[in-house]
């Protein structure tokens, strides 16, 4: 349950290319994954990203589902609707209790966790608990699930839609720790490992400055300007000079996504 409800990118890409924003997110996220990694996947776009990586550059990548599933393989057209139903166990290598699959994070077996969130701030902290004052919230969100565990114990990739109301100066509540208040504050809080590796949006691929841990534009999505990214972000982004443009999704990548999700339930 690490994909946030509010994070349904189903509208069209702002660039009006031959792919949707959701496909772009899936492709961009898949490219961050590396061969041999063990990846905690959510449903939808993040699962598509992990499976796409398996079918392109990372055939030995392993997927974990929070419901207690190790090494499932996705049957095209049968993407599971959650991470803890029997459909998640298709062609799995092993089933374990939930606590034990989460303990793989603590034991150091998980390379990447996929996360979403209603809000993210300049230090990559994620909020999926409260909009407004937690004591008297405007909206009570569904909560962390395993998100806090994943973000505390492994590197994470955040995949979400790039909107000013989501990219906020300071999250209303730190559900899942990013780099907290930057610098060494994360390690100082008892979290010596992990952190936000990349934030993948429909506008950019973002990383974090190694020292200050502030969010930085690593690459622009095709057809997007640095100004557009900043305009859709409520805090000042670091934009290196001459920031590159990410290569657009290839035909092969889009074909695989179409094969996996032929009815475009998750990539419309």
């Amino acid at each position, binding site marked *: *349950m690490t994909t946030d409800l509010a994070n349904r990118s189903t509208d069209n890409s702002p660039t009006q290319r031959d792919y949707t924003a959701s496909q772009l997110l899936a492709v961009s996220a898949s490219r961050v994954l590396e061969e041999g990694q063990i990846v905690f996947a959510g449903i939808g776009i993040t699962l598509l990203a992990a499976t796409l990586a398996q079918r392109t550059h990372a055939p030995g990548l392993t997927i974990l589902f929070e*419901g207690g599933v190790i090494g499932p393989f996705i049957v095209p057209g049968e993407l599971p609707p959650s991470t803890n139903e029997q*459909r998640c166990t298709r062609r799995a290598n092993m089933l374990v209790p939930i*606590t034990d699959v989460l303990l793989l994070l*603590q034991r150091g077996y998980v390379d990447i966790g996929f996360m979403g969130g209603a809000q993210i701030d300049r230090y990559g902290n994620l909020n999926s608990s409260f909009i407004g004052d937690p004591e008297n919230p405007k909206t009570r969100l569904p909560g962390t699930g395993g998100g806090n565990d994943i973000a505390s114990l492994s590197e994470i990739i955040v995949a979400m839609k790039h909107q000013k109301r989501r990219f906020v100066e300071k999250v209303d509540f730190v559900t899942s720790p990013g780099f907290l208040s930057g610098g060494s504050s994360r390690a100082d809080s008892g979290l010596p490992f992990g952190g936000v590796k990349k934030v993948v949006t429909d506008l950019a691929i973002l990383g974090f400055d190694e020292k200050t841990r502030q969010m930085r534009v690593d690459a622009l999505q095709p057809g997007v300007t640095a100004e557009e990214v900043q305009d859709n972000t409520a805090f000042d982004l670091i934009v290196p000079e001459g920031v590159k443009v990410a290569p657009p999704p290839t035909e092969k990548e889009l074909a695989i996504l179409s094969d996996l999700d032929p009815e475009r339930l998750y990539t419309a």
Partner: protein
Amino acid sequence: MTVVPYAQLRERTRQRDCSLHEKVISLEEAANIVNDGDHVAVGGCTVSRTPIAMIWALVRARKQGLTLSRSITSNEGDIAYVSGISDHIMTSWFSQGIVWGISKMMRAYTETGRARFEEWSHMAMGLRYRAGAMGVPFMPMRAMMGSDIVGLVDNAQEMECPFTGERLLLVPALNPDVALIHVQRCDRYGNAQIDGLQFMDLDIAMAANKVILTTERIVSNEQIRRAPDHTKIPFFAVEAVVEAPYGCAPHECYGTYEPFFEHMDMYAQISATKGEEGVKEYLDEFYYGPKNWTEYLERVGLQEMLDATRRGRSVYDD
């Protein structure tokens, strides 16, 4: 919810009848095992192996003041709030399910302060049950530190590890008064076998003071003994066994039936469009109205049942 002191934990266990004896009773009788104010742990996860039949029985018995705890809470949490059986749910995530959006009832009750949703990380919930199952007052863990979650929970303590000097979070044991667990099969003594996803049910069963098992079917003790390494819950942890076919409907039971998606959509629609009144009508129709569990299933509908069953069994088709 404070940690149950060891003396009390031992005394409660000592008072129970742990002999090998038959313990099959009805849903209604099983509801009597739960007292107002109890901490009731709910097995399964989200829409999987949820002990709906037992929750149905608790709602009909008009229980009050229960604290519910669960790995992840789906719309049985709505039912608990709106029916009035509980105003305090401890869990890591609470909404019907990702595909159905944020729970309107969870929002309505928690944003107005009528009920509490005490949020712990998923692993913390698991380790709290595990500590309870092991008979120790806490488990050390390495998550939740640094976040704001830890500031809103009842009880968690940081410590410096005496071996390594590392910072650790100690999460307190949960020893529920009662655990409700639904299984594919068990015998009349309560030896339970669970297929597929186990979720946190093994730890919950061993942590709880009393376990109420609902089961798709009751099998012979001889069948259990033919595969003793498939038994997941020992009979002596079990207080009562209730045969409740389709006891998770409209949720799923691994290998037996998938969720009843039309019914779940219908519920989501009602709660979203008609709000609390809609859910009360739903309770009247499906919870208070039926004469018995079979009539509940009739109202849910045979067509949906057959469809969910076909999908559920398909996991063994390959």
